[in-house]
């Protein structure tokens, strides 16, 4: 059976070039870059090359980048550092639709450390209200943390503009750019963004590696304390294979940024059109224009997401759902609820996320298979059409 992988916002295939590059670091180049002997010490050079490549992708300088274990560590490091260096301010501004790595950290800080969190709302298209942003960021704000693009809907936030507002008020700015890096260009050198988090495995590198951009001049307080690695900014022996892989992945992403972006957008739009035409009562969640080129979130009314996923899985199609049942939580996606997606559609929301490896055949296969799945599940659903009888009517 063919596998059509449209869950690239969850994780991506390791690029073959990355896989090749990482190989030697297990059996041959396994040394420790901090060692005095050349067997290990020469690896410091490989780490430096990776840092340069990643800096180039971001439009930053190598000194502005530290390697971490992934997106979550980068998010925590940035926010905790900002709070530590801005100790006279007790407020955090963030959005209601952040990834749990930021959302739950902010809730935790409010509950256990007494920080005031100002939650920015989104409209029905998942966009921020810039007036609200301007009102919520004040001279009490220690850090503003706004994701560059949303993982569920792909909606892109005007992070650079928000950073300017924060800069005027003297607040630090962090952005969780895990979904955006490698998909849209970012020239950090011309921005007021202080911290940016990214993750390797979302851009065709391996799991367990990520990075944090720290703007030159921004005060920093380490999160993981230990050895002198990463210029005393992050303790712990470097994940050399992961870092090398991330460097190669960054080069590939930079080369591919424009052609791959255009191709993904064309295929995504084809998928969107094909599904909306074939399936009645389906809607796109999220703003259509300001959206990552690879993400499509569709709400199929009157059906439940896990059931859709299981039937798609049976056909080899991999995607995600904002439904409650897929996570073990009982309430559906916080992102879709914050957007006010009606409950008729929220449980049946499916996220398709493409990569530069997605083919035309993949998309046509999904357009052929999914409508029948929705139709079948609707045929066994008590909702939809005329069937809204609430209770027993026979006596």
């Amino acid at each position: 059976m063919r596998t059509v992988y449209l869950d690239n916002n969850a994780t991506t295939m390791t690029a073959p070039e990355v896989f090749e590059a990482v190989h030697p670091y297990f059996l041959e180049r396994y040394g420790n870059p901090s060692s005095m002997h050349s067997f290990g010490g020469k690896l410091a050079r490989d780490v430096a090359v990776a840092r340069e490549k990643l800096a180039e992708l971001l439009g930053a300088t190598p000194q502005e980048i530290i390697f971490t274990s992934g997106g979550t560590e980068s998010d925590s490091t940035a926010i905790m550092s900002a709070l530590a260096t801005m100790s006279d301010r007790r407020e955090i501004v963030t959005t209601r639709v952040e990834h749990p790595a930021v959302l739950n950290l902010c809730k935790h800080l409010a509950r256990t450390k007494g920080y005031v969190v100002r939650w920015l709302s989104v409209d029905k298209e998942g966009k921020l209200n810039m007036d609200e942003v301007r009102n919520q960021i004040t001279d009490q704000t220690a850090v503003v943390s706004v994701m560059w693009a949303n993982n569920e809907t792909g909606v892109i936030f005007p992070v650079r503009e928000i950073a300017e507002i924060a800069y005027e008020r003297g607040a630090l700015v962090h952005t969780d750019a895990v979904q955006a890096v490698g998909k849209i260009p970012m020239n950090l050198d011309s921005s007021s963004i202080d911290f940016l988090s990214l993750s390797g495995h979302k851009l065709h590198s391996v799991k367990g590696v990520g990075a944090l951009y720290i703007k030159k001049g921004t005060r920093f307080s380490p999160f993981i304390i230990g050895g002198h690695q990463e210029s005393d900014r992050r303790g712990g022996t470097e994940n050399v294979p992961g870092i090398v892989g991330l460097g190669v992945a960054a080069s590939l992403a930079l080369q591919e940024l424009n052609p791959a972006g255009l191709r993904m957008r064309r295929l995504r739009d084809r998928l969107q059109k094909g599904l909306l035409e074939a399936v009645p009562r389906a809607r796109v969640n999220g703003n259509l224009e300001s959206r990552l080129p690879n993400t499509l979130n569709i709400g199929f009314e009157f059906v439940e997401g896990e059931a859709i996923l299981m039937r798609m899985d049976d056909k080899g199609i991999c995607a995600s759902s904002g439904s409650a049942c897929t996570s073990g939580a009982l309430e559906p996606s916080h992102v879709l609820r914050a957007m006010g997606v009606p409950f008729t559609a929220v449980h049946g929301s499916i996220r398709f996320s493409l990569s530069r490896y997605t083919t035309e055949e993949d998309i046509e296969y999904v357009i052929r298979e999914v409508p029948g799945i929705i139709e079948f599940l609707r045929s066994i659903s008590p909702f939809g059409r005329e069937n809204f009888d609430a209770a027993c009517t026979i006596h």
Partner: protein
Amino acid sequence: MWEYSEKLKDHFFNPRNVGEIEECNAVGEVGSLACGDALKLFLKIDPDTERILDARFKTFGCGSAIASSSALTEMIKGKTIEEAIKVTNQDIAEYLGGLPQEKMHCSVMGRDAFAAAVACYRGQPAPRDEIDSRLVCECFGISDEQIRNVVKENNLSTVEQVTHYTKAGGGCGQCRENIVSIISQVRGELKKQRPDETRSRRTMTNIQKIARIQEVVEKEIRPMLQQDGGDVELIDLDGNKVLVALRGLCTSCPSAALTRTGIETKLKELVHPDLFVEEVEG
């Protein structure tokens, strides 16, 4: 990813007894769109022998909800009411080769739907509507009676388990303390302490309210607005606050405020006098 048994997957991919029965004489319905799963059970019962001649279902929900519905119909077909009422949610789960803990509420939903259908057949109020039961979880519309039943039948001891089996406590979480005291009562650790009476006046559960509002919006309000090129969408229910979004011409209509009042009047009249409508951007 859930670890579902082969038997469960079989009942999900090839559900038995799907559909409605034209000449049924009992219908049981539980759950709602808002909750993420709902089951409507149709029975044809022989009035002389009380034997279940046919059982069919329609289910909105996840894999285990659909499989539990399918299993339930297979298990009760051919049995008398008296025999079938003994089928517990554990029996349904076992029939399917087990359910993940977090999905036990699917099997409970099956059993509840059957109880509702039997009540319907006997002309009694559905078990969830009984006056002497008290609403505990407002998010999912779960009564103390339902919680007591699952605690007793499944020998549950923690709030987390009760949430897995009924969903109660899985929303805002405000009722968790109440659930703890119900568990203690059932398990005999607390003697007859009356739960606080303030919330015991019960009119309509959230689920019933949502279902009824949805019905009125679909059947009464939308056709009316659509005649004038407008439309409305039900977004959410928060206590007695009904959130709606106006669509089409309604959004630019200078008398949009009148539309809101019109919807409110209809809902007050047909659903509940305490309801009020707020318009959200949608």
